């Protein structure tokens, strides 16, 4: 499947931070990011590393797992959004129950998608989040499963 390269605000490439404790899942998400015409500027395997990677790279989009060692994704979202309210974070997790989703959105995540990820669904979500962020920098999130 081919995707039109993602763009926003005239940027040549959308910059992504990919956070997942599974190397395999990270590789797959990175492959999708490249298929979407994006650039992976950082990877992290837990919430603590995600925070430092965010500070170092200031990505346009973060793809964030929830269940991870050291610090879970929802807690990492809270830290990142506290310091960077403009952060665009999409939760990507196999665990998609209501409490988790609501908690992630309340902490500042912009969207949620459940694994296994359908590439076209993730593409649409990223497009939506980017356009929503451009129009409304601190929008509240939505859910897609």
């Amino acid at each position: 499947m081919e995707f039109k390269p993602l763009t926003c605000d005239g940027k040549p490439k959308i910059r992504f931070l990919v956070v997942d404790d599974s190397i395999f899942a990270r590789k797959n998400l990175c492959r999708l990011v490249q298929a979407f015409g994006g650039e992976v500027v950082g990877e992290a395997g837990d919430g603590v590393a995600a925070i430092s990677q965010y500070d170092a790279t200031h990505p346009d989009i973060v793809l964030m797992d929830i269940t991870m060692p050291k610090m879970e994704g929802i807690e990492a979202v809270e830290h990142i959004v506290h310091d960077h309210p403009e952060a665009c974070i999409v939760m990507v997790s196999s665990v998609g129950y209501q409490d988790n989703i609501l908690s992630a959105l309340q902490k500042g995540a912009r969207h949620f998608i459940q694994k296994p990820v359908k590439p076209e669904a993730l593409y649409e979500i990223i497009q939506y989040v980017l356009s929503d962020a451009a129009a409304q920098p601190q929008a509240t999130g939505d859910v897609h499963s």
Partner: protein
Amino acid sequence: MKMDLIQPFVNSLDAVISETMGCTAQIADVTMDEGHYRRSGIAALVSVTGEIHGSVVLDMDNQAAQQAATDLAGAPDTPTEDAVREAVCELTNMVIGNAVTQLNDRGFKFKVHPPEVYATEEGQGGTKETETIVMRFETPKGTIYLNIAIRYNSRRARDSAAGVLTA
């Protein structure tokens, strides 16, 4: 073990295998395991704690595990041993994550821990408090076993015994 605990895992495995490997998974056999579970191929374990407590092992024979790694990577190259283990962990994460989502939305509150490679030859078995059920699924790409050793925690067990919980 009540069927309302098992069914979400069956549904989830079928859906995830269909989505990621593009094939069906049919239940071929179901047994109650009183001894220790012996893995047959590459396996990963996920623990759950809370109102439902225990662990679930997803075990794929070598053919199914190799094929899962190839399908999940979306590349025809022969996967390395590490890639196969990673793929089984990720598939386990998806199957159990989707199942516990269904259980949680029915009102059971619990936490899911990250998957870990299940390397021991002998591992979890049934106990006085926790029954273990082993389901064998046949797919065109190999055999998959799902070993479920979970129980309601005390409050839920009391409610269940009193007939408060329904599927």
